[in-house]
Every structure is written in structure tokens, then in C-alpha cells.
């Protein structure tokens, strides 16, 4: 053990470790980023109003059969996007381009077979939908969004469960990342048990999750928790929300108006 080793590593594919590491780093960085919010119009909107109308817009986009409507909405969304700061716009666009491109690829046979119009329509809708939802998630504090879920008659206790899920995605994500780094550092040769290593990490993750769940439960009990929870944040409604509502209502009216044409 106290002598030097003569070791020449053999080729082995460890892409999966790197890819996993990247995936986890991505999640953690996305979650960390949230805390520095900007000062634009979109940021100051009430989360319930923002989420509610975004979902409505997504529904109407999906229902629409009219290019004029779809592109009006898309232009509106791009204008909103443009009101954000450069960094945010880049982030949102980077993430929002993936699904449309993927869809384009899948639709190629359909387009080649002559189904051009509908394919374009589908792509336009997809682009609008993705940008709309990404704008919400990139300009709102996530814990506010989970509170906004109350709109959907989700019981309060589940709002707490959602918040806990977000938190533990972060904590357990860091834990998994550490294990992945450790695995990577120890991948000095050929690992014939690749599945064993990853399933070992997932297994440790499970056991750690179980332990943390028990500890959290004890912590909650020690602070008097007995099953009831009422999510308490009250969101303010301002004039900006009023304008946002008007804009969105106009869009909805446009849908029906165009539909009648």
C-alpha cells in the first residue's frame, strides 16, 4: 500500500455518469436561480392571476384553429418576454426551444406527406404554450406558485407537500450529486457493474430519503404539528394585475370573435 502503482487505464464508457451529473447540476442551478428575481412588470404580477390566466391562454391556444389568433397570442407572449431582462430572456428561450425543435423533427414525415398547415399550426401552438409556462416559472417564486395551486382546489396539506417536495428535490439532489461525483472519481478503469453503481446510488438515495422523512416527521411533531395545515400567504392585487386581466380577457374575447368569423 505504501508503494506506487503502475496503472494504465483501459477504455470505458462513462458518459452516463457525466450526463447524470449534468442533469443534477442543471436542476440545482435552476432552483438556486429563483431567489434573484427582477424588477419588471411580469415579476410584480400576482402569482394567482399570472398562473390562472396562463393556463387559460394555454387552453385557448390548444383549442384554436385559427392562425391569426395563435400568432396574436404568440406576439403578445413575445412582447411580455421582451419586457424581461436580457439574461432571463436568454434562459427562457434556451429552455423553450427544445420541445418545438423535437416536435419539428417528429413531424417531418407528416409534413413531407403533405400535412404542412396543421404541422405549422401545431408548432406555433407548442411554441406559444412553452414560452407562456416558462415565463411563469422563471418570473415567480416557486413557493408562491405552489400556493397559487390552491386555485385548483388542491387541499392545503398538499400545498405543504409540494413545498416539501421542492425542498427535498434540492437537498436530495445535492446528496445524489455528491455520490455521482464520488462514483466518477472512483471510475478509474473498467466498471463491469455500471448498473450496480447507479442502482446503488439510487438505493442509497432511497434510504437517505427514508431517514430524512423520519427526521422531518419528528421535527414537525416537536413543533406541534398534528396533521392540520393552512397555507397562509395572502397575495396582493394591484393595478398591474388589473391591466393584465384586461389584456387576457381581450385575448379570450378575440378567440370567440375570430371563431365566429
Amino acid at each position, binding site marked *: 500500500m505504501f508503494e506506487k502503482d503502475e496503472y494504465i487505464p483501459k477504455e470505458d464508457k462513462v458518459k452516463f455518469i457525466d450526463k447524470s451529473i449534468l442533469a443534477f447540476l442543471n436542476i440545482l442551478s435552476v432552483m438556486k436561480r429563483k431567489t434573484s428575481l427582477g424588477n419588471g412588470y411580469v415579476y410584480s404580477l400576482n402569482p394567482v392571476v399570472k398562473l390562472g390566466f396562463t393556463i387559460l391562454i394555454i387552453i385557448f391556444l390548444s383549442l384554436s384553429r385559427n392562425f391569426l389568433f395563435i400568432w396574436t397570442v404568440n406576439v403578445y407572449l413575445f412582447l411580455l418576454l421582451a419586457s424581461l431582462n436580457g439574461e432571463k430572456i436568454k434562459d427562457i428561450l434556451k429552455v423553450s426551444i427544445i420541445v418545438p425543435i423535437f416536435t419539428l423533427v417528429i413531424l417531418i414525415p407528416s409534413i413531407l406527406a403533405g400535412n404542412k398547415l396543421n404541422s405549422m399550426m401545431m408548432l406555433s401552438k407548442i411554441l406559444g404554450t412553452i414560452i407562456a409556462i416558462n415565463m411563469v416559472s422563471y418570473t415567480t417564486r416557486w*413557493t408562491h406558485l405552489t400556493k397559487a395551486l390552491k386555485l385548483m382546489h388542491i387541499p392545503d396539506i398538499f400545498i*405543504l407537500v409540494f413545498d416539501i417536495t421542492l*425542498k427535498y428535490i434540492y437537498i436530495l439532489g445535492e446528496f445524489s450529486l455528491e455520490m455521482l461525483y464520488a462514483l466518477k472519481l472512483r471510475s478509474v478503469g473498467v466498471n463491469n457493474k455500471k448498473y450496480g453503481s447507479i442502482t446503488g446510488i439510487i438505493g442509497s438515495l432511497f434510504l437517505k430519503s427514508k431517514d430524512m422523512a423520519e427526521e422531518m416527521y*419528528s421535527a414537525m*411533531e*416537536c*413543533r*406541534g*404539528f398534528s396533521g392540520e395545515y393552512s397555507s397562509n400567504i395572502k397575495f396582493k392585487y394591484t393595478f398591474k394585475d388589473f391591466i393584465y386581466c384586461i389584456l387576457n380577457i381581450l385575448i379570450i374575447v378575440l378567440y370567440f370573435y375570430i371563431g365566429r368569423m
Partner: protein
Amino acid sequence: MIEIKNLSFKYKTNLALKDINLEIREGEAVALIGPNGSGKSTFLKLINGIVFGDSGSYVFYGQEITEKKLQDNKFSKLFHKSIGFVFQNSDAQLFCPSVYEEVAFGPRQMGMDDKEVDKRVRDCLKLLDIEKLKDREPYNLSGGEKRKVAIASVLSLNPEVLVLDEPMNGIDPKGKRFLRDLIIKLNKSGKTIICSTHDFEYVKGVFQRAVVFSEEHTILRDDAYDKVIEDEEFLIQNNIK
């Protein structure tokens, strides 16, 4: 006011505590010291009603604390209000979406109205010097900040007894000094402090009494804090220093 008599506890098949006898009076500041695995953390869990002894008894302010009794919601809530526990792992302790809500959780559960809750929360945040963290998400804070939020969220219940499991772990020197002064202040105001610690450098003047756990999971020595700390030979022999 805390009386432990002949308490033993087995965790699965491993013995965690053997025949513990201990009495702690109101207003004391007691340090629990001992090597890893001696049962300190388990003991702290026990006095907080998270685990229960296999044999022996635990009496808290004249009431015996058993698993059955704690199933009564009212009793359990009153018990947990009287004794606050700061975990070793701050991550497990914080489960609310913002620091404000974390500290407000206890008082809200107690049924206080919004104005009172707000006052309590602000007082606790000020006491721990974390007012600027009010709207942050707890999982995004540094280790020391998390520890302070954890302490604040326990103090907001205004417990009579404060139990801390290795509070100095992972804190920088300034943070340690702050915590030390805080614990002294709390003790002076009448709170009973029970604290397990490895860190002797930063806790000068905090404790009057030290209870030493042995590697055999029993209480080895129960003496004045200064006497124990100065007994170098004893400490080295028992894997404490």
C-alpha cells in the same frame, strides 16, 4: 423537573442507552458530553418524546411521558410547546417555504392570531439577527443561517426547556460566539438548557453542569462543568478529548 429513572433503550438490536438515571432542575444549563455513539443524541430524542425507553420512566414537570400519553393530541401539543429541540441536522428541521413561515409555524399551530404571530416572529428573527432572511427559502441558506432559523423556529414556541444537539457543528467562529451569548442570555432569563456538544472552546461560561456518557452507553460522571473540563486525564481516557 426532569426525572429519568433506570431508563434503557434499544435501537433495533443495538443497545443505545443503559440504565440511565438523571435529574435536571429548572433553570439549569447542562452539557452532555461523550464520544460518538455513546447515546447522547438518542438521549436527547428521548427527552423530547421522539423515542421511548424500553424500561424505566421519564417524568417531565410531574407528568410521566409515555408513547400512549403522547398520542393524545392536546397533551402532545402542550408537551412539545414546553420543550424545544434543535436538531443536529438543520435541513430536517426546516420544512416551510420561507423563513418567516418557518418561524411562524409553531405559534400558528398554537392557535395565536395573525398579529400576535407576527410580533413573535419578528422578535425571534431579531433575537437571532436574521431579519434580512425573512423571505428566503430555508434550503437555500448557508449552514450557519439554517442553524439560526432552526433555533428561531423553536424559540418562537417559547419553550421552558431548550434542547440542542451539537449546535456548534459546522458554524464559523463568529457564529459560535453569537450562539454562545444567545444561550447564556436564554439561560439567564430562566430557560433550562440541555445541550450536547463536542466543542469545548466556544462554550465557556455557558454550562454549570456536565453529564458524561460513556462508550458503554451509561452515565459515567455527573459533576460541575468546570471540574470535568479541567480533568484532562479523565477526558482523554474516555475519548472525549
